[in-house]
């Protein structure tokens, strides 16, 4: 993992420490084969719900992981900022 990626994970941990958990739960869905591990969702998430993890199965070697779903406030910024349609927030199948 590169330096800026480790920094992202640290910032996410900081956000989790400072923030409060929301009352209503929210669900996140990650499509691992589309994720390229760019880290934009981790950066843009206001509550530190997401972090980057090593993922040797993909050619990028890294992907996003939902580490604290109970912190998710359902703002959908991760889904909007993701360039690869790899993460969805409160996605209802068959909507």
């Amino acid at each position, binding site marked *: 993992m*590169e330096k*800026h990626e480790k920094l*992202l994970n640290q910032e996410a941990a900081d956000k989790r420490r400072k923030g409060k958990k929301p009352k209503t739960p929210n669900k996140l869905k990650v499509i691992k*084969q*589309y994720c*390229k*591990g*760019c*880290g*934009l969702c981790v*950066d843009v998430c206001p509550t530190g719900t997401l972090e980057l993890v090593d993922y040797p199965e993909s050619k*990028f070697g890294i992907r996003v992981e939902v580490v604290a779903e109970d912190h998710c406030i359902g703002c959908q*910024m991760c889904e*909007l*900022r*993701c*360039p*690869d*349609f790899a993460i*969805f927030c409160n*996605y*209802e*199948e*068959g*909507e």
Partner: protein
Amino acid sequence: MRKYEKYIRYRTFPTPWCPGCGNGVIVRAIAISLAEMDIDPKDIVVCAGIGCSGRIPTFFNTNTLHTTHGRALTFATGIKLSRPDKTVIVISGDGDALAIGGNHLIHAARRNIGIKMILVNNGIYGMTGGQCSPLTPRRFYTETTPYGNIEPKFDVVDLLSASKASFVGRETVVRPKALEKIILKSFQHRGFSVVEVISNCHINLGRKNKLRDPIAISRWIKSKTVSQKQWESLSPEEKIGVYPTGIRNEENERMEYTDLYQKHIVPNAQAGLKKR
């Protein structure tokens, strides 16, 4: 299932772009706008030229056309004129719209033909390896400006306003919700509409200019763009190198080209009014 997913061609995924490239955000913003307007995908054609942004149409579940470099607007003009009731969208990058295709851009604006254009501005020629473009900021280092870029860049919004485009706006990929809103408005506009989308190319532009990862370059873009209100409160020195987002020009007085053709030329021709 999101409403916009019927406009996405999932069988062509995953996308070929670098991790973090803004093109994917543009795909989603366009798909959301099309879903909002509820147009049948079979009545839409998305055209593009050459470059990384030229691969954007591949991911739409509509008719798609990948043309020669810089000439997407000409193909779109032919399609729009001969099928005025269809939706024609053109996606262009830096070189496609302003270098080789600069001439077609100003003529399409002058004609006010009902093509919806998205101009993806990432400040570089990404696909060919990172050469400078007409939109590369000054003093930046690229593959063909190893000593720093000495050419100033176009202000796309100024250029198009001067060419009398009837809808011109600018947004960035860093603000996806605002991007959706402005693209929706541009699609709803009847005449020629252009939205310049400032996108991030950390691999080719950022690599030589200390903006190597998507987070750093996104923050840099955010620092260089301000809203229209903030722009007005800046001093002239602060305005250098900073760009206002939002709709610059939106006018509906001029008739769209194909409407004018049907309402003026065809009736005159058929009434036997010859040219003088």
